[in-house]
């Protein structure tokens, strides 16, 4: 019926224009389109013909007006024709519509009749249906009831079948099913337990479940079941209202038995290695005893041999880690899975199982770890050989690393910190062992040096005496060589020990970043405990040489004393600071606690050196004094014959002094002596003039440590001691005429040779004068020998 909107013109723009105008006509204002308010718009609604015309007339020329007029006329004509077409079309449509309405009027009449008929039929149907439903009502109720009964019966059947089903499950070992079935029935049974039949079922179920629980427990207790099985068991048992605490205990005791087995394995190994260890030790001990010919090789290598013949510590720790620690971790993990992290619902949650279980776990882990630690510590203590430290460090590292797993699993546990403690203790112990090994090494090297000194070819005294003061430079090591080799030995050993100890602080070792290893280990342990202690030990043992040797009358060879003193002096000047700097650099020591300063150590070394040197002077002085004393005491000076020769003992004295001079000169460079008077050996000395001249016997201590002054002061000391002894001995005797003359000859001889060794030759003169003077004083018939004769005798001798 919208045919009015379809104009015959097919032109789209024209049609739209028509369309819009129609709309305008019908008042359907097209929205969105801005209405043109221009009165000159011929199509706009506000068109004012007057204005338009005026406008045209004003704007356009006549021609244009003519054109416009013709155009407008044309438009008006086309519009008229359009109008006519539309009116016609509408008329046609209107007629056909009237026809259609008429036709419809007839049809509706027919339909009305049919509708009446339908409503009558429907009424009949309604009545019918009401009738039917009234008859079916009873049966429906019955069916509903029956279906209710049916479901109940099915439930009952489940209940009645439950024991059998449980039994079957039990047979099939489908424990989980059984438990879930029982759980479903449990409440009902509980509720209806007053009824005998249900009671029976409940009892049956109870018995069966009891049995099941028994089986589960059995399984739980059985060693063979895997962790997964176990956890399943535990879960089921928990669901069966088994007390969780008991389960924890059982689980733990079960785990404990397995871990104990691991530990026993470890212990057995420990005992094995112990047995082999002592065996090895025995072999070691008998070895040097059986062939004492080569003590140097056995003695030097001995402390650095690893005596463990059995499994080494790395293997042991490996085994411990792989077996015990990993099992422990497994146990902890599964335990936590079961008891702690397991989400509990209902009444289980209220029992605070996690807390209780956690407590138990901690106790369990602690006790087992304590046993493990004690084993490990025993094993570490076995590790006495100081040869290869890397093995121990690696073992400790592994040990420590594996314990970190426990700390991850069990955050609050003290086990890892205890493990760290053990590592720290082991490190401390290690340092002690290294110190004692160093000490043994030092002693052994000294023994070697002593033997080298005792070797006959090296006796510098003999060699130099025969060679007239020239040192024998043959293949055997001389004193300086011994000194350098000794100090190199010690230094190298110390360095290697430092390197070994340094392993403890290596970057890739897990425990190296623990505070102990960063701070205390470096400063207190290595620097103080090892290096400083060792240096102190050297000084102390050197000092001991001074003390022990005094009583036993020179059990220490004097050359060794000299060597040690030079060693100590070297330590003072350079080695100590070198070692300490090396240590500090290697270990990046940060001194939190006060440490021994280098100067203190140097002072100690210096003191030791001085003491040794003084002792050397004393010992050598004593040897010569002894000679002189015996020679004076054993002679009958009253009845001696006229002197023809210098006594042999005086030559010996000069020889020995020369050899000492050479010996000391080997280690300490010769100092500059006082310019000697050229005639000093020819100096005459009168018997009487000197007797009143008093010269104080000053203590013979050497305080100057510059090498220049040292050699001279050592020899001055020795000569002073010897001549003083000579004097005292002379004073105890009574001389005859020739006795005095012999003393004169002897003294002149000494005069000729000894002046060159001392810093101040006057000292020798004074002492010799004193001797001759005392002898003259103690002479019954003092008639001194002619100086020229003395000179002749001395020159001849």
């Amino acid at each position, binding site marked *: 019926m919208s045919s009015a909107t379809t104009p015959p013109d097919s032109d789209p723009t024209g049609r739209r224009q028509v369309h819009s105008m129609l709309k305008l006509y019908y008042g359907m204002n097209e929205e969105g389109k801005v209405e043109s308010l221009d009165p000159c718009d011929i199509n706009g609604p506000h068109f004012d013909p007057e204005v338009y015309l005026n406008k045209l007339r004003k704007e356009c020329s006549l021609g244009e007006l003519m054109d416009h007029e013709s155009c407008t006329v044309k438009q008006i004509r086309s519009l008229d024709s359009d109008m006519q077409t539309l009116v016609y079309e509408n008329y046609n449509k209107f007629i056909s519509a009237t026809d259609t309405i008429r036709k419809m009027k007839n049809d509706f009449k027919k339909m009305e009749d049919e509708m009446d008929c339908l409503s009558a039929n429907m009424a009949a149907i309604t009545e019918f249906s009401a009738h039917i439903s009234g008859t079916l009502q009873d049966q429906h109720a019955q069916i509903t009831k029956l279906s209710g009964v049916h479901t109940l019966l099915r439930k009952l059947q489940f209940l009645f079948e439950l024991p059998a089903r449980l039994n079957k499950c039990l047979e099939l070992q489908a424990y989980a099913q059984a438990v879930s079935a029982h759980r479903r029935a449990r409440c009902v049974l509980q509720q209806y337990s007053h009824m005998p039949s249900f009671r029976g079922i409940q009892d049956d179920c109870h018995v069966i479940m009891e049995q099941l629980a028994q089986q589960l427990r059995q399984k739980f207790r059985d060693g063979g079941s895997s962790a997964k099985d176990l956890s399943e068991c535990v879960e089921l048992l928990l669901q069966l209202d088994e007390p969780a605490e008991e389960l924890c205990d059982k689980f733990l005791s079960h785990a404990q038995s397995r871990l104990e087995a691991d530990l026993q394995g470890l212990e057995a190994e420990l005992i094995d290695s112990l047995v082999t260890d002592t065996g090895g030790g025995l072999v070691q001990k008998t070895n040097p005893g059986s062939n004492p010919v080569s003590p140097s090789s056995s003695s030097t290598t001995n402390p650095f041999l690893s005596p463990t013949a059995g499994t080494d510590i790395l293997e042991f720790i490996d085994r411990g880690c792989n077996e015990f620690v990993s099992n422990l971790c497994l146990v902890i993990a599964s335990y936590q899975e079961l008891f702690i992290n397991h989400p509990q619902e209902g009444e289980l949650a209220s029992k605070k199982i996690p807390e209780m279980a956690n407590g138990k776990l901690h106790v369990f882990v602690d006790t087992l770890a304590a046993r493990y630690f004690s084993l490990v510590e025993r094993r570490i203590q076995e590790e006495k050989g100081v040869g290869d430290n890397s093995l121990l460090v690696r073992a400790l590292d592994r040990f420590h690393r594996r314990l970190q797993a426990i700390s991850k699993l069990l955050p609050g546990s003290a086990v890892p910190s205890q493990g760290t403690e053990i590592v720290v203790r082991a490190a401390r112990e290690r340092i002690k062992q290294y110190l004692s090994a160093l000490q043994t090494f030092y002693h052994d090297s000294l023994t070697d040096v002593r033997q080298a000194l005792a070797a006959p070819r090296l006796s510098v005294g003999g060699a130099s005496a025969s060679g007239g003061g020239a040192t024998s430079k043959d293949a055997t090591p001389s004193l300086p060589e011994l000194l350098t080799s000794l100090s190199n030995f010690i230094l190298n050993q110390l360095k290697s020990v430092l390197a070994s100890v340094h392993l403890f602080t290596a970057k890739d070792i897990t425990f190296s970043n623990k505070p102990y290893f960063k701070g205390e280990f470096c400063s207190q342990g290595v620097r103080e405990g090892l290096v400083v202690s060792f240096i102190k030990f050297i000084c102390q043992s050197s000092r001991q040489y001074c003390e022990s040797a*005094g*009583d*036993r*009358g020179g059990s220490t060879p004097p050359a060794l004393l000299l060597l040690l003193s030079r060693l100590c002096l070297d330590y003072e000047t350079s080695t100590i600071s070198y070692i300490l700097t090396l240590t500090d650099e290697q270990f990046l020591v940060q001194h939190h606690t006060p440490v021994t300063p280098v100067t203190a150590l140097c002072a100690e070394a210096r003191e030791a050196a001085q003491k040794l040197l003084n002792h050397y002077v004393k010992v050598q002085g*004593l040897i010569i*004094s*002894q000679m002189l*004393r015996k020679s004076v005491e054993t002679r009958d000076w*009253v*009845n001696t014959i006229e002197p023809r020769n210098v006594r042999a003992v005086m030559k010996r004295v000069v020889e020995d002094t020369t050899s000492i001079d050479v010996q000391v000169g080997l280690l300490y460079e010769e100092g500059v002596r006082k310019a000697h008077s050229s005639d000093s050996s020819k100096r005459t000395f009168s018997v009487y003039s000197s007797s009143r001249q*008093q010269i*104080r*016997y*000053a*203590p*013979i*201590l050497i305080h100057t440590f510059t090498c220049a002054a040292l050699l001279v002061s050592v020899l001055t000391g020795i000569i002073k*001691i010897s001549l*003083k*002894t000579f004097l*005292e001995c002379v*004073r105890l005797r*009574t001389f*005859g005429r020739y006795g005095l003359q012999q003393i004169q000859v002897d003294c002149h001889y000494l005069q000729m040779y000894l002046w060159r060794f001392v810093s101040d030759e006057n000292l020798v003169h004074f002492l010799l004068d004193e001797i001759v003077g005392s002898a003259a*004083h*103690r*002479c*019954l018939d003092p008639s001194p020998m002619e100086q020229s004769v003395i000179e002749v005798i001395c020159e001849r001798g």
Partner: protein
Amino acid sequence: MEDDAPVIYGLEFQARALTAQTAETDAIRFVVGTQSLKFDNQIHIIDFDDENNMINKSVLLHDAGEIWHISGSPADKAVLTTCYSKTSESRVLTCAAVWRMPPEWESGSHESPDDSSNNPQTLELLCHLDNTTHGSVACVLWEPMGDGKRVISLAENHVLLWDLQESSTKATISSSATLEGKGQLKFTAGKWSPHHNSTQLATANDTAIRGWDLRSMSQIYCIESAHGQLVRDLDFNPNKQYYLASCGDDCKVKFWDVRHINEPVKCLEEHSHWVWSVRYNHSHDQLLLTGSSDSRVILSNMVSISSEPFGHLVDDDELSDNEESQQEDKGKEPLRDSIIATYEEHEDSVYAVEWSAADPWLFASLSYDGRLVINRVPRALKYRILL
């Protein structure tokens, strides 16, 4: 408190022998014997006047020979023994004799000391301790605190116990012992122990110290190599019966407990040459005096091994009565072993040191050049010990 300066007395001869007059308990008196081969030897009796710090001397002539050792009788202050060397037929022999000082020496000396030296009196010989069969005598020891009837002489390797009879005019050997061994053994020093009823003797030969029981004349202990070299002197601790000090050529002074002879109880090494003499103070055995040929005398305080390791516990009769209150006020910490003083007045070797028998705080030392120095224990220490 200023300590008194030492008093020095010079003899004109060299001297080695010094003794305190043991029987004299009132006057401070020392006896020195000179040693001269060419001139007549003398015995100087030196009285020290403590109050005026003065020395009175009297000189007696000892014409038998140079004196090596001298020792006074504990019972009679006029009696003394000397060991002197006698040269005969170009042989030197050291003999021993008992002498009596002439009775007038005491009165004469006080009036004009100068005169007495000009006109010396001679000692009266009581008897010889005849040793022609035994060789040179090293020293003569009186029985400590005895009645002056028994002496021991050490001659070469013999120990001879003499009984003096008839007012010491006759000497007979009552018993003797001989030290046997390799080589030429010779006693160098000895000491009669004041303990055990005077039945023990200690001797030194070479580096060994031996103990003897005088009843059986047998050796009871022997400290082999007690010193590194010759042992020069011995002394018994007057208050501790098993303690003994020794000194020797190794410049050391050692303290021994004769019950444990393997190790010395203590060892001092302060001298730089031979130590010739060691003496315990008679009353305060922590005070020890040593003389050495480094010409020094050292006074040490060995508290730790003395009979009074915790200070003076028993009240001293003279001083404590007045000052008892003070004594308690002073909180005394025990003294430590230490060197109290080193005396360097001597210029030659010091061969003898002696405590005075009368004054326990006074001692004398004698050096070879004949210088006798009398010193006192420093007052500070004296009061420390007493209070």
